[in-house]
């Protein structure tokens, strides 16, 4: 049973990281309204498990719970999304076959960036790659923190980041070949 002191401690240590919790949920679920529900559920779960928190980094501890809550929610509501793991070999072929726009397409694509295109490119990444980019680039987590949150070794964090970022560049390049409605205007070689 939680004591009154625990509630004060929870409000002091965990609640300040609500924005981080919401942001991770928003990107994993790709929806603000679902993220709001799931972040709320995760915070309540965190409160229930709060006697299991023995010091350490409260943000990493909370994000770990948020992440688990998100995956449970996805498994229940959108199981197909969890199946879309990034297939290295098929993407390797795709990269080579992708139409080139002259010069260096990837630098072109990135230079002409805009928020919407980056959002779509990030949302196209499989969740396991999306989360490392979100934690690193949006949340500023260290590899050690990401490893703790996603429950993988640090070496895996580094390789996931490197694959995620390469994939992100590929998506950005391909998005440049689509018009604003997302229809492909250039696909044939």
């Amino acid at each position, binding site marked *: *049973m*939680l*004591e*009154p002191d*625990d*509630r004060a401690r*929870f*409000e*002091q*240590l*965990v*609640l*300040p*990281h*609500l*924005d981080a*919790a*919401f*942001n991770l949920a*928003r990107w994993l679920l790709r929806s*603000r309204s679902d993220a*709001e529900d799931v*972040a*709320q559920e995760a*915070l*309540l779960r965190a*409160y*229930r498990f709060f006697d299991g928190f023995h010091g350490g*980094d*409260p943000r990493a501890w909370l994000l770990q719970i948020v992440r688990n809550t998100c995956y449970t929610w996805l498994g229940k509501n959108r199981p197909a999304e969890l199946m879309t793991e990034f297939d290295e070999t098929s993407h390797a072929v795709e990269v080579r076959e992708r139409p080139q726009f002259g010069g*260096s397409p*990837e*630098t072109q694509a*990135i*230079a002409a*960036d*805009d*928020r919407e295109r*980056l*959002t779509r490119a*990030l949302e196209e990444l499989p969740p396991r790659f999306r989360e490392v*980019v979100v934690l*690193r*680039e*949006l*949340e*500023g*987590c*260290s*590899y050690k923190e990401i490893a703790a949150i996603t429950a993988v070794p640090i070496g895996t964090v*580094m*390789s996931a*980041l*490197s694959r995620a*970022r*390469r994939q*992100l*560049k590929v998506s*950005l390049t391909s998005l440049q070949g689509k018009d604003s409605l997302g229809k492909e205007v250039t696909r044939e070689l």
Partner: protein
Amino acid sequence: MNCELTTKSLHGYLDGELDAVRAAEFERHLESCPECLAELESQESLRASLQQAQLRERAPLGLRKKILQDLPKPATTTRFAPSLSWQWLAAAAVLLLAVGGLGWQIASSRLNFSAQQQLSAEIVDAHVRSLQPGHLSDVISTDQHTVKPWFNGKVDFAVPVRDFADEGFPLQGGRLEEIDGKTVAALIYGRRKHEVNLFVWPENASDESVHASSVRGYQLLCWRKAGMEYWLTSDLAQPDLEVLQHLLAQ
């Protein structure tokens, strides 16, 4: 991307996560590998785009309130009430005496406890206020030679402005704050995605070593050196904040 080091070290290098030996090894490699150099530049520009796009989304305003309402009420606070007997009163009296004696000791030291707490709360308020959009800096510059003169004529003391970008705490700017009825200098340092505020003002008293505290989840470090009082605050973990404190106190 055939180069083995591209996959092995490039991202660790980009993220500042390689140890000094491996970072130096990778830098030597960059000199002779145009492929890695191009990839590093391309990754740096991807990162810059991600930063500029400001993709981090804040929680909706009402969410915090909703969560606070939904948190189950903790065990009641009336645990002691039913058995409030003379024994409890006696124990309470002893405790009061003890606390009173302790309070006396603390009050007679220069760090008056409640004044200190009030100051901590004021500092954290100023920090939180500064995080509102557009409130962080009056002078935005990573150049200490721009920030330092900006304070001239605005405060009546020399503000110690130093940049620690190489140590991972880049200077981001400065502004004025009202703390404890005084106009003080605030300097902003970055650490990954976190902002750190340093508040500085002259205080005519003897040096004090570092004192750590926390208010509403924000960490604070304060110390006094050579007639200046320093307060550091951030949502960073204490050890990170201590690194900056060491740099500043050098």
